[in-house]
């Protein structure tokens, strides 16, 4: 039996029917066709499907869609406009933090949740912030550097 829920997605009010067993990742990808969120394990182990719910980075493959009723949800699509990238995205590009790219949207969302709370994180805090996001390409070196640089750029612009 489908149920109607309302929530905010990337700043836009959503009013949509979801199935009781449906996970948030399926709502985002299959129903709303936002494909930036990636599926890597479907068990909350890789972080590729990370989105932000009410300021917290979570694995969307573990969250029942029904649970986002009344919440504010952000996905990678909410970060940029067609003409302007988020400083994190810009920094990932400039630092060469992108290789195959499959983990990148989830990692950027984890980083954003961190910077939203801690605008000037330490190296250790950055590491812990993305410890749930597995990347098999980069060795994390340039990813961490990109996040630290983006933090600086964001802080300077405030």
């Amino acid at each position, binding site marked *: 039996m489908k149920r109607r829920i309302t929530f905010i997605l990337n700043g836009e009010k959503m009013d949509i029917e979801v199935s009781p067993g449906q996970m948030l990742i399926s709502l985002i*990808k299959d129903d709303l066709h*936002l*494909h*930036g*969120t*990636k*599926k*890597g*394990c*479907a*068990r909350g*182990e*890789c972080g*590729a499907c990370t989105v932000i719910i009410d300021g917290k980075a979570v694995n969307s493959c573990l969250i029942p869609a029904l649970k986002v009723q009344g919440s504010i949800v952000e*996905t*990678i*699509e909410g*970060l*940029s406009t067609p003409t302007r*990238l988020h400083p994190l*995205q810009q920094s*990932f*590009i*400039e*630092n*060469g933090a*992108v*290789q*195959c*790219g*499959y*983990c*990148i*949207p989830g990692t*950027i969302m984890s980083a954003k949740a961190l910077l939203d709370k801690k605008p000037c994180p330490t190296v250790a805090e*950055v*590491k*812990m912030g*993305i*410890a*749930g*996001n*597995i*990347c*098999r*390409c*980069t*060795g*994390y*070196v*340039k*990813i*961490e550097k990109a996040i630290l640089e983006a933090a600086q750029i964001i802080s300077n612009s405030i």
Partner: protein
Amino acid sequence: MKIVGRSVERTDAVAKVTGAGMFITDFSLPGMLFGKTLRSPHSHARIVNIDSTKALALPGVKAVLTHENTPRKRFNTSATMTFTVPNTKPVLDQRIFDDHVRYVGDEVAAVAAVSEEIAEQALKLIQVDYELLPAVYDPLLAMESAALPIHPCREGKNIPGNIVRILYNDIDKGFEKSDVIVEGTFKLPVQKQAQLETQAALANADANGNLTVWSTTQTPHPTKIILSAVFGIANSKIRVLNPPYVGGGFGVRIGCSAKAEPIAAALSLATRKPVKIVYSREEDFIASDTRHGGYVFVRLGAARDGTFQALELKGILNAGAYCSFSVETPGVLGAMGLAVYCIPHANYYGHSVYTNTTPAGAFRGFGNTQAMSAIESAVDMMAAKLGIDALELRLKNIIKVGDPWCLPYPCQSTGLAECIKEGAKRIGWEERGKRITNDPHKRRGIGMGVSTHVSNSWPFCVDYDNAIITMQQDGSMQLAVGVPEIGCGSATTLAQLAAEILGVSFKRISVVQGDTAATPFDIGSHASRTLYAAGTAVLAAAQQLKREILQYAAEEYHISVEKLDIIDGVIKDIKSEGVFVELNEFVWQAHLRNRQFIGIGQTVPGNAPPWQAHFAEIEVDLTTGKIDVLKIVAAHDVGKAVNPQIVEGQIEGGVLMGVGYATTEEIRYDTKGRQQSYNYHNYMLPTAADRPEIEAVIIETCDPSGPLGAKGVGETGTTPTPAAIMNAVYDALGIRFMELPLNQERVYRAIKRLEERV
């Protein structure tokens, strides 16, 4: 050079950071069905009976395929076993489905249904009766007379293909000349690529008899040819392409490991609908190729002054249940193992052995990681026995340009000595054995390892490249090349090469790749070859295109062609720097006169050795056995670094993969042949929180065989990392480990044994 050597931003980066880049999991076709695969729960069995009646009766199920209603043609999912060079016989030991299952996870049947849920349900309704057979999991046991043959083999019990023998002068004489001999047998683990996107395929067999397969493959052209052979469909009627992005590869996608492509194609041919298969993470772990585990024996002899005299190397690898790359991997193990040092007497003997475990195949490093883990440990054992510094011993014995060696192509460049010296400086080698911690329960150590590798797979498999650059009417260009972009940055670096030759801005060149319908044959993105090998074809295409343009210009302006060049997008007189015309304008005028410029490059690239020296600093907790890898310095001779930032990224990622191999990663099997680490939570990959500091150092040489001097770098970050860590652990503890990974349990037990003895 203007563009080559610069860290320009990757051309695929915006699509990837915004999430707009499409991977196979992201797209669907109208009317698409979902495919699911039934896998064997037994490690070795015959299928006595299989009944799909109930599954077919489930509403929403459109097809159920088993060994009874799919093509029986034998094939090999590995690209190179399909393209063996003349005189080597391919090992074709796989079918889409067989009535004989050989490992837990082997494909038994597949379902196409209108939803994933219904397909899953239908799998449970397929009734299979198995007759269980004795199984064997260790390669040494699988060769014994008591073991059951898993496949018929020519060279010995359960040995796929040929035994590899490399003889280099009389080995016995070498040991006679040796004052000191060290030896050991190393047991190496099974590692998983664990790329972020699982194996997947979407097949569409249309009404006209064409088959299109969107695939995660690293080798679209070979995968097309495999599918063509399996289904008896002409090469020209099959199109294999990437979506365009592929979520990592590391070797597992060279061909169609785990058979998502042939199974999706069979389901689509049966239903005449598009069928998509995306393997679960568990399926990817248990059914797609792994790194070869196994045994490497090494015996090294040296004169008192440290000059190496003899190296005997033997590799017995675990092939798993199907051959895949199990003939080539022991070959590379031996070839690369013997290539690092100048040793007058050397001998290699190696092969794989079938067992009832997940097939082993291509994985970054490809046998070389196994070889160097053992050899570089032995070199340190030798240094200790001789009382010579391990770094000096290496400097004394490494191959130099012009030295004779066992490989069928010359060593035309090496920066290894410089890599060793620069790396040593950055790790603080002179402090080896002297670094102390304030914590009495902890010890520190420094170690090193060196290696070489290939930049290409020639002459070991069929290997040639094509590139086409088509001038567009506005002066922009389209470069078509058959290697896919699996994350290594080839879309960017190949365009950099073309732009350098053509004298235009790199942004003018768009790259079309990873699509058999848009590109001529290319063996694919593997063997650290993408930039090196496809690069030579791109270079040739760019040179031809430039010649065409300048010849036309020479006629137009009545000037000798030698006097013309394209500089910054302008056709100029080289001497006077006099401007004739902007390239854009010239190309448009040519178009109006019915002329388009096209450059075609067709090359059979050679091969060249990249060189690596890695240094590790580690800390061991004596109370827990936990090893913390603190720092890895990775100094690499990459030839010319076309895009240094991309080169660093390749090295850094490879290093961390090597750290995982050395310390935590391992697929283990229980007594029934079931993987005990089949998901990320129980297969321990390094995360950002536990990675060491990684310092990638680029040492540039110029290899005459590579495009503008470039050599391979894709795999080399992994190869010497485990040995550097093993040697650092020896430095810290005085314990020589002969088995990987150096996980907490293994190290703790070794420390306890040592303490009991003292």
